[in-house]
């Protein structure tokens, strides 16, 4: 834990604990995400990945521990969640686009309503992003009309439109078929190249290997093993990690 001297990490989570009633879903979670790094969480369904992301986004109140964003304790009692979330982007497994708005309207909603950017500027920026990710011609479509992969890319663009410090990706490809998975993952790869700081929960091991600076294996609410992606994914030390990776491998997703 040698942070002294180094720049403050974008995110620093320390001894985080979260329970729902009697069930402890996260405990003793400690990790940092330096600027431009991508930390990938792997682990079975129910291991606590989504809850962890929801805690960071302040959608859940933690039971113990601290979360620091750029050094500021965002788990403190007097923090305004809206201010914190301005610095965070979140992409959900089920896209969660607003079905009553067009793609463009989805993207410019937060910039115009939250950040107070003028409509013209927001639209110009939205078209820029859409152009970059090859969705320019979908701007006036409603989300329901797009493929799952397109919807998820729009959801990513929507969260990028607010220039987040940190992007939280919660199993963003779990609802997609393999062909569509690739278009979404290459979008994320592109973001990684551009230096976006990210926390990614995923089952895509190959993808994890490509983008992760660090992989953490979450098991029953604890980080059991962590380290560089090749080492965790290829030479895991713990039986539980091996088990999990083998099971994913058997499922044909490595």
């Amino acid at each position: 834990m040698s942070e002294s001297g180094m720049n403050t990490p974008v995110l620093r989570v320390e001894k985080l604990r979260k329970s729902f009633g009697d069930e402890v879903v996260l405990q003793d979670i400690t990790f940092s995400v330096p600027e431009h790094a991508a930390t990938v969480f792997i682990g079975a369904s129910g291991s606590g990945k989504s809850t962890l992301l929801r805690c960071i986004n302040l959608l859940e109140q933690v039971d113990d521990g601290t979360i620091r964003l750029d050094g500021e304790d965002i788990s403190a009692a007097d923090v305004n969640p809206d201010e914190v979330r301005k610095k965070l982007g979140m992409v959900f497994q089920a896209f969660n686009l607003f079905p009553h708005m067009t793609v463009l309207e989805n993207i410019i909603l937060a910039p115009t309503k939250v950040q107070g950017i003028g409509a013209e500027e927001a639209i110009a920026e939205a078209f820029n992003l859409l152009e970059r990710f090859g969705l320019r011609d979908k701007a006036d479509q409603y989300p329901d009309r797009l493929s799952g992969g397109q919807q998820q890319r729009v959801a990513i663009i929507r969260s990028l439109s607010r220039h987040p410090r940190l992007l939280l990706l919660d199993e963003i490809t779990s609802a997609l078929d393999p062909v569509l998975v690739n278009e979404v993952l290459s979008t994320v790869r592109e973001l990684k190249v551009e230096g976006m700081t990210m926390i990614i929960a995923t089952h895509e091991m190959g993808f994890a290997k490509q983008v992760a600076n660090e992989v953490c294996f979450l098991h029953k609410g604890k980080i059991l093993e962590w380290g560089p992606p090749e080492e965790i994914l290829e030479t895991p030390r713990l039986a539980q990690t091996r088990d999990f990776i083998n099971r994913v491998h058997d499922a044909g997703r490595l």
Partner: protein
Amino acid sequence: MSDNRGRGTGDNSSSAPYDFGGAWQPSEIEIARRIARKNRNRKNALIAALSSLLVLGTLLVVLVTSPGWITLRDTFFKWAYGFEVLPKIILGFGTNATLTLIAGTSVALFGLLIALIRTSRSPALTPFRFLATIYVDVFRGIPMLLVILLVGFGIPALQLKGVTNNVLILGTIAVIITYSAYVAEVIRSGILTVHPSQRAAARSLGLSHFQTLRHVVLPQALKRVTPPLLNDLVALIKDTGLISILGVTDAIRAAQIQTAKSFNYTPYVMAALVFLAVTIPLTRMTDRMLRNSLERQNAQGQA
């Protein structure tokens, strides 16, 4: 633990199910945070109490210091007299309650039927769809008082054989006709908000058109329109009183009779309280039912 440089393994001991936190003690940070939250909640409660006291207190002071307050109090809030006439008003309210039960049930069924016809696509039902649309257009547009008068006085005037002249029944029919038009539109809007993919999923499971409606579309639709339907039910309870123009004694009519005797308006206030005593618990109960069922259904709805 994990600090991004290098690798490591964590506590590997508990391969058993979740430990249930028996040994866990909140850290100092957490304890401080809880105290801060508690203080903030206490502060918020205090602000709420003070602001309520200030606003309500001001209103009360304005009311009781107004020049006509004493006269108003004696004419509208003569509680002793009010309780004296209360039994008669409650008796009259029996009419409202009975009519609400009968009309409410009929309206629910008839309104649902109209809504189903209007949302159906079957070519065979085209004339019915047409008629249902006209029905809704007409009876939603005519003031209910007129419908009551037309049905209540018009039908007996036709002197048809075998048709009742009982104003209570005719009045109820008029209420049913009008309210069904409203309720049909509310239910129809609910049906239209259910996503087509739900229908597709149900049909591809082999459910028939009717089964899809019954088991998939309607349960979702009705849940969504419960609040507006409750609105209509509360309005219905009050509007059943309108048939008193045909000579039926309901709670308002009973209060009116008492007022006419004494020139004191307290019976009206009592009638209002009787209506509130029914509608407020009804609203709260439905709200709670709806909230519970949504909470069961939606994971992670909060934020």
